[in-house]
């Protein structure tokens, strides 16, 4: 478990046109946006939040050239070294005839590699349980989670979000970072401790 349990102020917006200025003002104010959860890709939101560009496509390119070299070197090795087969007296090193398979393997390596990398980076896999700040984040709400530190006055953040146009505001505790299926239990423990105090 990395990251530990943290406190978040969560504000839900019902219009992306309100969300954009809100993201801007929250960042200006110096609050740390943990993440914004949206039901569809809102274009430009990543820039507004100051996220860096993804380099997933670079990974895709690397997988692609791996596919190309695998196909070409394997076929060359088989037909010129391991078992040179005489096919109608044609050259053993039949590069033009290998273009189709080389191309297919380029595409296959790139696609499979990229999807696996995507799942790895986003920590997506079956049986993964994650904290969902709002169930309607996949329906019609744009949910902003602001991370609180010891020094954060969360009442202040809440009123700030309200001014920025959030429709629903609450405070939640959640674990950040890596986890597989342990999240819910951890959250309950934390709450119980809270009550005992």
């Amino acid at each position: 478990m990395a990251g530990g349990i943290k406190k978040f102020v969560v504000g839900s917006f019902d219009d992306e046109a309100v969300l954009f200025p809100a993201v801007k003002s929250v960042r200006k104010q110096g609050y740390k946006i943990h993440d914004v959860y949206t039901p569809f890709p809102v274009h430009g939101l990543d820039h507004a939040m100051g996220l860096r560009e993804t380099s997933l496509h670079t990974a895709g390119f690397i997988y692609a050239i791996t596919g190309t070299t695998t196909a070409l070197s394997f076929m060359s090795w088989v037909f010129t070294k391991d078992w040179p087969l005489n096919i109608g007296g044609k050259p053993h090193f039949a590069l033009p005839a290998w273009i189709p398979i080389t191309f297919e393997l380029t595409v296959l390596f790139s696609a499979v590699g990229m999807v696996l990398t995507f799942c790895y980076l986003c920590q997506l896999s079956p049986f993964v349980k994650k904290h969902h700040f709002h169930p309607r984040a996949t329906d019609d709400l744009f949910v902003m989670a602001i991370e609180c530190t010891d020094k954060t006055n969360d009442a202040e953040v809440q009123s700030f979000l309200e001014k920025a146009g959030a429709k629903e505001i609450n405070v939640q505790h959640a674990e950040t970072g890596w986890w597989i299926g342990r999240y819910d239990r951890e959250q309950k423990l934390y709450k119980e401790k809270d009550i005992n105090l």
Partner: protein
Amino acid sequence: MSLLKYESQQREPLVDGNKNYHQVTEDIISPIEMKPTRLWYIGFYISVGLLLFGAYSVYREVTYGIGQWNLNKTIGWGWDITNFVWWVGIGHAGTLISAILLLFRQGWRTGVNRAAEAMTIFAVMCAGQFPIWHMGRVWMAFFVLPYPNSRGPLWVNFNSPLLWDVFAISTYFTVSLLFWYSGLLPDLATVRDRAKTKLRKMLYGVASFGWTGSTKHWQRHESLSLVLAGLSTPLVLSVHTIVSFDFATSVVPGWHTTIFPPYFVAGAIFSGFAMVQTLLIVVRKVMGLQDYITLGHIEAMNKVIVLTGSIVGCAYLTELFIAWYGQNPYEWYAFSQNRANIFSPYGWSYWLMMFCNVVSPQLFWSRKLRRNITVTFFMSIVVNIGMWYERFVIIVTSIYRDFLPSSWSTYYSPSIWEIGFYLGTFGLFFTCFFLFAKYFPVIALAEIKSILKTSGENYKAKMTDIEKADSEKFYVEEVEHAH
């Protein structure tokens, strides 16, 4: 109100009715939250029945050999390879819609891409059956894979178009599946978050891989979709090109023509769109999705049909002309006698193909007919029959009279098990499609939401009002902001 994008008011809305984001979710998810209807059960059981008949036909073929089909020494490829090429072709429309139209930034793809991609995957599954079972000794099927073996190792022939097919079809299936499923993740998460029962929550939770909708994830998802679209575009063109190489690299008159790759690709997209029409006209009606799959969508697809149909027609005439102009007696015999001569044993199939693929789609030059559901549905069936006959004509009329007249085999007609196998793939296809329509969102939910404010009917109307009231102010506020 600040809208983030601007779309010309001349364009038809892509989402009809007064919708907001939640309404979109409601409309698309609620059919899969309800119990299946009686109609669904009837359709599903008919499909399963066909699938079982197909399985029995395959069992006969495996037990007694390829002789169970009416193939013979001369006609070694008959219905089986015809069906294979036909099914692969059907698949192509899905990739065209999801990949090529994504690169071309065609907003209307959002309404139809999910179902079309599903169709692609199921069609490729059906297509794959034919070459596999046609091997006869199917338990040796793994011989097509280049694995280190105890026979030398004796490798597969990388110079053979049939092996290229193995790589092309399997890559196509894998990439289509990944593309489709990565697009499904956010929508499955929506179903999960709405689920009422524990079982549904668990199943859709597993299926949605724990998707949250984080901005960073969306950013990567967009990048992934774009690159997969970029990869799928040449891939889909390569797949039918390679299928056409099965014929074009041979020395059989009627087959060895250089026009085959573009001609096959155009034909594939043509038949694929016809199948998309057949399916979606039913789906939109039964599931009440007329607001999302509008007449505009149907018209757009009919435009693709008339375009690709005309390319195919042009290719037919070109190959006929070249056969004559090339002055190769065998080639000309194949075209003038085996095909174009209506009194020859299979002449009827050539003219049926010509009528279905070249003449009938020309109806779609009329806007009124393009927007007519009944005509479109009828035409989609006609086109699919026509495209099946195209493959039949190419395969059978080229080989039933070979270079040795004593081995001419004039009266090839399929056996019941050959037909049963074909019907079985229909069973497989529709069984999968019924399950898909029942358990998965048939429309790409997130994508519809992302175009709602630019192309939704109510939003477009609002924009027109602002535009009319003060066009200068509108331009500064809305249009500039969009760029």
